[in-house]
């Protein structure tokens, strides 16, 4: 466990103190709410590491996470929200790693009906899953679509700054929800290649973190009169602290820009979601798209499937043998068993073409040039996700 700054330290201790209250104390006031969500998954992948699989032909079961969400309303117009995240394994982005993070810590002011301001660390209001990025029970497959919510630089877990949100009801069932936000955040990116055109060293590339400043973004979601049907558009732009690809240029605002559109139809027994976007950095564009569908078969069983793709397009063309490192195309299926909406068991299979995200832990230029790098990865998972 590491603390980057005193604010994070204070926030963790404050939340720890709140959650240590005896159960009776939590019932004393109706102004404090405590909720949680989490997951466990076992995975096996072949031949490369990917998500819950290590690529070593053995089951990895030490993948578990828990988030505790605490909110209080000390005044009529003021709400305070905090959330701590504990994880080991896949949820940290790296197997065998452990992590404790302050995921949320903000104060919210109800300025007036349907308009709120948030100050602090909040979820990024982007796309369909940006503001519920770690809540497994709100998606049809165990893992999020990696084209947008994985190491492609589109998304972060949270931003630090100021946000405004609200809604406008236009009548006849039409409603527009909006978000504006600004501040700073950190994304992670697997670039596929480096500025010099060669992978650095013999080790597989770790996802690079990009610290973004002068962040400015927004999202619009239009709810239609047709129950469950909505459409949205999201965008943000920021200045990276340093150029990910060390191209020698000084970073400027706009050097990291993301735009996306999405659509959703969610009405029992069907769930359909699609999202596409472009992430632009100084030296490359990253285009991503996914489509997922799920249907309940009775009250508890659900079948889900997803197609997910992303491609890195460098401004400077690279030799063709780099292509597998610049692409990710995935098809996934999942059989789910639900206990209400509080708990779901999932058995899933994912097939990945390309090595942008499913990458060998050791990679050499010779593998690429000779075409001997296996570009297909299979992942099988079994897990549980819950929320209360």
């Amino acid at each position, binding site marked *: 466990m590491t603390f980057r700054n005193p604010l994070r330290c204070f926030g963790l201790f404050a939340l720890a103190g709140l959650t240590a209250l005896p159960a009776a104390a939590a019932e004393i006031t109706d102004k404090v709410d405590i*909720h949680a969500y989490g997951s466990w998954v076992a995975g096996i992948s072949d031949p490369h590491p990917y998500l819950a699989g290590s690529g070593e032909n053995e089951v990895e079961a030490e993948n578990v996470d828990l988030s505790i*969400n605490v909110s209080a309303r000390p005044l009529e*117009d003021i709400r305070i*929200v905090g959330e701590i995240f504990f994880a080991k394994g896949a949820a940290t982005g790296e197997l065998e790693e452990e992590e404790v993070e302050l995921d949320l810590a903000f104060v919210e002011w109800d300025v007036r009906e349907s308009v709120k301001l*948030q100050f602090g660390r909040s979820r990024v209001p982007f796309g369909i899953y940006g503001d*519920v990025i770690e809540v497994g029970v*709100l998606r049809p497959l165990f893992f999020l679509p990696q084209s947008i919510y994985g190491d492609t630089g589109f998304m972060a877990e949270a931003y630090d700054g100021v946000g405004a949100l609200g809604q406008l009801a236009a009548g006849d069932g039409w409603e527009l929800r909006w978000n504006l936000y600004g501040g700073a955040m950190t994304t992670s990116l697997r670039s596929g290649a480096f500025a010099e055109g060669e992978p650095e060293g013999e080790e597989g590339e770790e996802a690079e973190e990009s610290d973004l400043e002068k962040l400015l973004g927004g999202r619009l979601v239009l709810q239609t009169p047709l129950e469950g049907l909505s459409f949205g558009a999201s965008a943000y732009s920021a200045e990276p602290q340093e150029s990910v690809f060390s191209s020698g240029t000084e970073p400027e605002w706009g050097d990291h820009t993301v735009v996306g559109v999405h659509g959703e139809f969610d009405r029992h027994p069907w769930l359909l979601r699609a999202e596409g976007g472009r992430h632009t950095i100084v030296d490359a564009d990253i285009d991503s798209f996914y489509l997922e569908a799920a249907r309940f078969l009775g009250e508890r069983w659900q079948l889900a499937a997803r197609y997910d793709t992303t491609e890195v397009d460098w401004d400077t063309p690279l030799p063709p043998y780099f292509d597998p490192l610049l692409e990710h195309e995935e098809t996934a299926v999942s059989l789910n068993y639900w206990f*209400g*909406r*509080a708990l779901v068991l999932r058995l899933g299979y994912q097939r990945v073409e390309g090595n942008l995200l499913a990458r060998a832990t050791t990679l050499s230029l010779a593998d690429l040039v000779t075409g001997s790098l296996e570009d297909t990865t299979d992942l099988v998972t079994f897990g549980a996700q819950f929320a209360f």
Partner: protein
Amino acid sequence: MRPVYTLVCLALLVLLGSQGVPAQSYDFQVVVNDANPMRSIGVDHLERIFLKKTTRWEDGSRIEPVDQAPDRTVRERFSDEVLGKDPSAVKSYWQRQLFSGRETPPPELDSDRQVLDYVASNRYAIGYVSSGVALGSGVKQLSVTD
């Protein structure tokens, strides 16, 4: 007698019109604290209150909606007839609202009696109970209009 009869009919018409006579009956009673000046409420307004899309009464005070437990029959009826969703869909809605940091769901109580006690002791509260349940003191019923 004829003019008196006409006057009585006219008076009844005016009275019923001002009450917002519901176009259909519902399988629940919407209740508020006695101090609440409202007499009727539109079903759209009721939906927005219980999804916390509308959070203020007309005087600016914060609305305190109270729900019933998901396994209660009256909860199913209310979800279906007012929210247009089954309780599991409402659960998903609140999970998204809660974990995105937007809002927390209304408290869930286990019986009509608990809802009535809650509303009677909270002047800004609104809840619903089963049809035919005696309301007791401190609460009154709102008629629901389309």
